[in-house]
């Protein structure tokens, strides 16, 4: 699987592409997407951003989605300049509550080829942010994450560098309710291991966390075993380990965990669990999503399981 759709809803709003010269849509009901399209009206993100900033009523904007920040034919361009532009306009966006950075489909660029950069300046620039999402793990740095209002943090990648996992594990996000990370494949830079999750799972952070989503994990059985005894599990209501490689061993670890039995919802969609394994989960009195079972690839003695999103 690859990313085959743009966001159509974001922060509870319909997504509307920004068009120069058109009045900005109702900020309470819509999110504006700014993206360089194929053969479209803009070649430079700076021109697109300038037109957006010069639109009447832009200061009322509450939700923004950034798609491509560079021409599609030009090959990958790091996100650095786009980040700098957006941050430098922060005072023109005092009401910004939601930002998604990198709404790029596989038709435009592979998720593993998106070139991010240090985006840590967003935290200080937008103090009213409640939701932040980003796609692409290459060169991504979240820095020292400290934010008083952020409720939702999503980091999507085909392979998330270990250093970023550590940054998230050290984050100071007292209001965080939804944490979603796509760990991805080692072949695409996802070099984290269970021990790298310690900061996220030890229960010392994220006092208001409701949903923990550690998706697209290549070592999902080990992840399940780690989660089964993780202090954070006592706090959350929803656990999402979908898009990964979960098998029967991981299921056994989950069903043995008292904390798992107290969840409201468990999502393992895209998994390698047997019928018997799925039955063990559905026997728990929690809501389980076990859709999209995959078959193990076998080459001789070798077994291969794949995450849903990598390249």
């Amino acid at each position, binding site marked *: *699987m*690859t990313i*085959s*759709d*743009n966001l159509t809803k974001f922060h509870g709003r319909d997504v509307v*592409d920004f068009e120069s010269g058109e009045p900005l849509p109702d900020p309470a009901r819509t999110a504006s997407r700014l*993206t360089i*399209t*194929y*053969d*479209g009206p803009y070649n430079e993100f700076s021109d697109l951003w300038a037109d957006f900033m010069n639109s009447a009523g832009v200061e009322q904007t509450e939700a923004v989605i950034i*798609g491509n920040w560079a021409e*599609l*034919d*030009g*090959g*990958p361009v790091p996100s650095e300049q786009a980040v700098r532009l957006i941050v430098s306009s922060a005072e023109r966006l005092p009401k910004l509550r939601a930002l998604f950075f990198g709404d790029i*489909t*596989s*038709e*435009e*660029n*592979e998720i*593993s*080829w998106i070139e991010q950069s240090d985006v840590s300046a967003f935290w200080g620039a937008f103090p009213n942010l409640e939701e932040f999402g980003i796609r692409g793990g*290459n060169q991504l740095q979240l820095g020292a994450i400290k934010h008083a209002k952020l409720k939702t943090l999503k980091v999507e990648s085909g392979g998330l560098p270990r250093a970023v996992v550590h940054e998230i594990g050290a984050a100071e996000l007292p209001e965080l309710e939804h944490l979603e990370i796509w760990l991805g494949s080692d072949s695409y830079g996802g070099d984290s291991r269970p021990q790298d999750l310690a900061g996220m799972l030890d229960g010392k952070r994220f006092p208001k966390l409701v949903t923990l989503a550690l998706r697209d994990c290549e070592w999902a059985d080990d992840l399940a075993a780690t989660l089964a005894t993780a202090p954070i599990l006592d706090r959350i209501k929803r656990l999402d380990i979908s898009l990964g490689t979960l098998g029967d061993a991981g299921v056994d670890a989950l069903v043995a965990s008292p904390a798992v039995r107290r969840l409201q919802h468990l999502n393992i969609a895209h998994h390698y669990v047997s019928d018997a394994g799925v039955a063990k989960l559905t026997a728990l009195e929690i809501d389980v999503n076990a859709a999209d079972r995959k078959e193990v690839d076998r080459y001789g003695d070798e077994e291969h399981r794949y995450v849903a999103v990598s*390249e």
Partner: protein
Amino acid sequence: MSPSPNDERRTALFAAGTPLQAVIVGTTGDPRMTNYQAARARAGLSPALLLDYRDLIADPMGAAARIATPALARIESPGRDPQVLAGLLARGIEKSARLNLHHVPRAEIERLVRERGRLLPPRQLYFGMESVLSALAERAHDSGVPGDIQLVPDVGTILLAFDKSACHRHLAACHVSVPPALTTVDSFEALMTAMRAAGLHRVFVKLQHGSAAAGAVALATSKFGMSAITTVEVVPSAAGLRLYNTRALRRYASRADIARLIDALAPYGLHVEAWIPKASVEGRIADLRVVTIAGEPEFRVLRKSRYPITNLHLGGERAEASVLLSRMPARAVTALDETCRAVARAMPGALQLGIDIAVATGLVRHYVLEVNAFGDLLKGVTTREGLDTYDVQLRAMERAA
């Protein structure tokens, strides 16, 4: 051969004074034949006389001579019948050999067409089609009064539509929006050089005479590596690499594998275009098949897929075109319809055309990806009045008569 670029041809196509003998050139048992004859029956018309490709292949001139005048002969796709395909491949040897182009010798054809999924050399098939259809064109030309035997579509249009490079050039010359194309790519190295020179990082490599996405490769390059999503499976054998069409799309990620793939396809003749990033709907990548009839876009179908190659037999799903069109600005939808009309004007020898169109991300720009001369087989798709593509064609001809 190029289609007659004027409206006289179209007038001749429909201006039938005396009762015409209705002929259909096709392969017995093919659903296109059945569907067309069924539509004739619904319209209260007698069945069209069948001229089977098998007869046309066995004796092109003799079979063509069986068309009595005045006649209107609808030319259909030869379909997938192995015997017909073998016959066309055999008819394609002579020209392939004369032009010193890669082809399969007679002795190997039978085994090739019987082997499940084997990629058949499309240019050789094309030359075979050209050879047998030329007999029809000649018969039409020699039948006496011009237009006494009308071929629909005419042979020039069929051949143009089946040559992606020629069709691309023709449409571009007619100011139809098509993706930028790369010329003279005959190897992986040549492809890399051409992509660099054009500043293209993402291309669609197609077989110049291929159909139904056979041999198509969606190739993306970046400093991080390469990716090729393809309908082709490369299987090494003692006699070299064998190519198969696969219904489960393959992905190759190493430069060596991709080079091997492109170099294996190159002898068949390549057509390379920029990969237009297609808009998405409902979580899927989508493109449009528009069927024009008598110049007007009459049917629009959306094809959705997880992958850049959206053909229905490759896992694509059909959906209502309105799902995409309703998200586009009104002016962009109008422009898309105008493009379909422009394609029909550029190929006036056809009554119907199946036009594949990509709407790019941003939902404004669109590009014609393919034109199918036999693109009207849309299973289960009807107008609001319950008419299928064949019904609408018969009505269009009735109106014009």
